[in-house]
């Protein structure tokens, strides 16, 4: 008994292994997420950062199996939730998990709510989807949920329509909906990008609050490193469908390893320091139809790129305890590794 309990404790809440997700374009599948593996522990907040188009959303939609039907498909890998593989579940089975065990909120609070149903109805729906409750009880619960996410006049608001609310309020409604069934994992896909900073601060506060109150884990997708620093425990940096670096927050911000991470950090102006010139990353994230087959996907934009970067695909490897990076520079099996360590990687 105690053994099983112990082992259960050790199973991460979510285990993604070698996830591959592709899109059908002109008849062929192209992978937007290529071999992504990571774990999320209970009550952990994992941040996912990266430029636009690097596969953050696709990865999260894969977990929820909400990829556009007929176009997007999980083409390989495992997704284990509480130890059970959910990657191959039917839509019907998935419906029992979505909204109950795993829920999700999205970037655009404006369009993510159905404009023709009341707020109350939309929250009730998730409750009624998973619990045998009367409509009345569901409504009562919705109102208290609305109150818990800090919406004033909750009773009234429940009868109003999304367009009558501001962006911040709508995002609160989304959160209320997401936590309605006390899920164990919340995936938040850029929940604050569309909001103003002061409202963003409110929402981040709220998310932290509900995370603690509900003992949830959160996958926080964002491209704002500030947000990551603010609330995450762990960070995943993605580039072109792959994880290039993974570490705890403190470690990442203090000792970034991958050139991509470093450049990202230096590209944003900071409040507390003045720089005349910001770091830039030339070029663009390659589109999924012309991803390099082998080699480092960042190589053609990397200021530190070596000729080998084009021919050798770097693997995610531990560079420090709890810190992994996928770069030849940190690959111990790579012979020239030494030299670069000495030179140091970074920008002049």
């Amino acid at each position, binding site marked *: 008994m105690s053994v099983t309990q112990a082992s259960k404790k050790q199973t991460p809440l979510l285990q993604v292994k070698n996830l591959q997700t592709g899109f059908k374009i002109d008849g062929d599948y192209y992978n937007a997420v290529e071999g992504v593996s990571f774990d999320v522990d209970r009550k952990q907040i994992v941040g996912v950062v990266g430029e636009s188009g690097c596969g953050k959303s696709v990865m999260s939609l894969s977990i929820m199996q909400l990829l556009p039907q007929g176009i997007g498909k999980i083409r390989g890998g495992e997704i284990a939730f509480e130890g059970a593989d959910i990657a191959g579940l039917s839509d019907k089975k998935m419906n029992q998990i979505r909204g109950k065990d795993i829920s999700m909120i999205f970037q655009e609070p404006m369009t993510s709510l159905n404009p023709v149903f009341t707020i109350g109805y939309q929250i009730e729906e998730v409750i009624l989807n998973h619990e045998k409750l009367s409509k009345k009880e569901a409504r009562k619960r919705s109102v208290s949920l609305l109150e818990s996410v800090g919406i004033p006049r909750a009773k009234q608001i429940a009868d109003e329509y999304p367009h009558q609310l501001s962006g911040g309020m709508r995002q609160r409604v989304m959160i209320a909906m997401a936590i309605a069934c006390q899920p164990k994992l919340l995936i938040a896909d850029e929940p604050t990008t569309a909001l103003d900073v002061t409202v963003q601060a409110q929402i981040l506060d709220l998310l932290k609050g509900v995370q603690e109150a509900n003992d949830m884990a959160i996958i926080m997708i964002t491209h704002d490193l*500030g947000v990551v620093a603010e609330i995450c425990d762990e960070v995943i940096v993605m580039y072109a469908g792959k994880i290039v670096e993974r570490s705890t927050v403190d470690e990442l*911000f203090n000792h970034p390893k991958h050139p991509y991470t470093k450049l990202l*950090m230096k590209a*944003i102006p900071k409040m507390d320091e003045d720089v*005349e*010139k*910001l770091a*830039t990353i030339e070029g663009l994230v390659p589109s999924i139809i012309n991803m390099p087959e082998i080699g480092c996907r960042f190589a053609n934009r990397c200021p530190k790129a070596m000729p080998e970067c084009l021919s050798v695909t770097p693997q995610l490897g531990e560079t420090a305890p709890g810190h992994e990076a996928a770069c030849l520079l940190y690959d111990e099996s790579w012979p020239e590794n030494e030299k670069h360590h000495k030179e140091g990687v970074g920008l002049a």
Partner: protein
Amino acid sequence: MTTRDFIQDRIDSLENRDVLLEIQNLKTYYPVKGGFFKRTVGNVKAVDDVSFTIRKGETLGLVGESGCGKSTTGRTILRLLKPTDGKILFEGKDITKLSGSKLQRARRDFQMVFQDPYASLNPTQMVGDIIAEPILNYEKRNKKELEKEIKALLTRVGLPESAYYKYAHEFSGGQRQRIGIARALALHPKLIVADEPVSALDVSVQSQVLNLLKELQIEFDLTYLFIAHDLSVVKHMSDRIGVMYLGSLVEVASNKDLYREPLHPYTQALISAIPEPNTAIRKERIVLQGDVPSPQNPPSGCPFHTRCPMAMDVCSKEKPPLKEVRPGHHVACVLY
């Protein structure tokens, strides 16, 4: 010379330069139409009594939350909108009342860079034509020469010459923004209003555009009104910063002063709300309550008093004027 010194230098030198643009008590209201006969039933007070000056070669940053009237201010200055009240003086000339061809002629001197790199370029025009159009609106030019000039300009903003023959849809957001910048530069204007030029861009691309704008400023001796909602970007770009809230300017100060010592409670909240990409400094945040009120019926008195943690009774009664409380540091708050 370190960057810091350089900036200080610049600020000092700017003090002595001529005023390029002066805004006095500018008001821009959007009428709200209603009823069957489309009568005006109210006003959105998008810009409500705003005054500031910009000196030649200077960058004035404008920050504020969405809907606070930043774009409206920028557009009114360029006279793309008709001000409801107030004065706009450009190089001492009053351009508030200009219209028709006079206005068209005056527009030569001020140009705009827009927020949405997708919507701000006409998809049916060739890039070359997009950039040539402002010039051809004012001058008759030899075709060959013009093409050369434009290609030079394209190179300057970091685009290949071949871009001349392409269409906007073939470019990424950052590249489009460069095209927009080239268009604004084509007439060698004195003032450029940049309305959130980077907020639609990814961080990596954002830094490219910011760098470019900075380079161009020095090269062409440009004056910027730089609008953004991201305080750190504004701070990076500007010599002085104006903070707007609900149509009003609540604080104007030099970039350094504003960050070091924000005076207005709103500015303080704004700065504290910005998440820093640095785990070392976990600061105490001031989380404001509630939302920005609607500009259609703004609160009486200080527009911020409904959310202000330090609000007092007077705040709801009188709208505090913008006062210079420190040298070069203006704030509109009864606390000072």
